[in-house]
């Protein structure tokens, strides 16, 4: 039981209409304030559906059954307290990197000088200053993802929702983006829910890994990750516990994949 849960999901199920796809089955989840939770599962286990439900996006929202509470209040739709970084590129192609980062603030009516200050800060944090006037199509995959992250962070969300944000970047860029993300989440206290199908990624980033089973998605097990933060790939890969944790998660995922094949 979490002491100070920022998010609670109570027996949340989702059946899509009209396709009748049974995506989620009775999800119970509590996320502690400032926790970094990784949701791990194979493709099609409903982890993206879960994230979109939390974000409040149609056609995922509302759940067919159950409810999701943020700070004890049920969510009604999308809101800037929960900001998502999508799997595929979703920067606005018609805005420069800087204006993409400032977009949410502009929507909120934040005055120009203040917006500048915020975008300046995140451009610097992400080492994107050089690219501030470039348009998304001029950036590499890793750069885009950083800009995407900067845009989300600039909104100062209570919960950051990340849907396999590094799936499209190459393996090496991925490692450095993961380290970057950890550094940022230490820097600014924030609750993060990170969806991934990479076991290493989940161990490296998470305070806890929540393993989901294949469709309909259920939570199979929660595994706490005790490695101290900040973590670095160079050190973590040598930790003795790492291999053990890895093989445990592998078998959990595999059991989850087979569990529904019986019927």
């Amino acid at each position, binding site marked *: 039981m979490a002491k100070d849960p920022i998010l609670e999901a109570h027996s949340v199920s989702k059946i899509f209409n009209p396709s009748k796809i049974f995506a989620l089955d009775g999800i119970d989840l509590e996320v502690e304030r400032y926790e970094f939770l990784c949701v791990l599962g194979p493709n099609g286990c409903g982890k993206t559906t879960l994230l979109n439900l939390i974000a409040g*996006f149609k056609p995922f929202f509302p759940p067919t059954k159950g409810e999701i509470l943020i700070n004890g209040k049920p969510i009604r739709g999308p809101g800037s307290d929960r900001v998502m970084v999508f799997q595929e590129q*979703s920067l*606005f192609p*018609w805005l420069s990197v800087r204006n993409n980062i400032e*977009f949410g603030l502009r929507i909120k009516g934040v005055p120009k000088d203040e917006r500048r200050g915020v975008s300046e800060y995140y451009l610097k944090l992400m080492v994107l200053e050089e690219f501030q006037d470039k348009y998304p199509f001029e950036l590499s995959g890793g750069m885009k993802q950083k800009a995407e992250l900067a845009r989300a962070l600039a909104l100062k969300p209570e919960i950051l929702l990340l849907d396999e944000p590094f799936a499209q970047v190459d393996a090496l860029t991925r490692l450095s983006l993961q380290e970057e993300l950890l550094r940022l989440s230490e820097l600014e206290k924030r609750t993060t829910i990170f969806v991934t199908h990479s076991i290493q990624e989940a161990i490296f980033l998470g305070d806890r890994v929540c393993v989901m089973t294949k469709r309909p998605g259920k939570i199979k097990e929660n595994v706490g990750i005790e490695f101290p933060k900040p973590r670095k790939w160079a050190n973590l890969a040598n930790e003795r516990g790492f291999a053990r944790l890895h093989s445990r998660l592998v078998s959990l995922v595999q059991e989850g994949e087979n569990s529904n094949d019986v019927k």
Partner: protein
Amino acid sequence: MMSSKIAEQSKRILWIIFPFLVVLLIWQTIVELKIFKPYLLPSPVAVLDDFVVKAIYTKALLFHLRESLIRLSLGYAVGIGGGLGLGVMMGLRKSIARFFEPLVELAHAIPGIAWVPFAILWFGIGYETVVFIIFLSVFFPVLYGTLTGVKTMSLKYSNVALMCGARKWQVIAYVLLPGAMPSIMNGIRIGAAFGWRGLVASEMIASASGIGWMIVDARSWLNTETVILGAILIGIFWIAMDRLILKTLEAKTIEKWGMISTS
């Protein structure tokens, strides 16, 4: 380096002028041979002479051009505004779109000029009929383009806006319209070209002024040099408009964003 660039440039210009010179030379030769009567084929000099007289002395040309341009601006303004407005509305509401789509599809396929007889019955000879035809020629391509753009735009962009806390009008102004811009620009360019043809044609049939009428009127007086002059001017004006206004607009928006449409 610099001189070679200038040489390149002048060579390019030369190759634009040269074909025209050849045509003019052949034209003048045929006139000199006196194969056709002068009222059937006036000399290039006579056409130039006519241009000087009408542009500088009688200023008749300026009057007709002004008439045409006023009609054109009115038709364009109403057509583009209306097409954009209805297009966004249809794009937002699936039910409205489903109802209008087949109708628009058909209307889009009818050349504006086909409505001239109908417009004459309603509005008589003059401004209203010509503006109405231009309006129709522009309205449907713009509507079609807007509708396509809004409909095919990925949901993720409006989701980003929604999670920033955007209101409906903000989603339209900051996301839908810029996102649909490649398709809208496509519609505007097609519409503008149709509108230009609609202008000339409807002035010939249903007007007593304007560049189209000038040509028809000159024909009835056997002022063939004016007929040729008018036709050439119509071509020059369209090229100027397309290059100066439409191309610039495109370069300022979708080209800069890397969003050049492939359709």
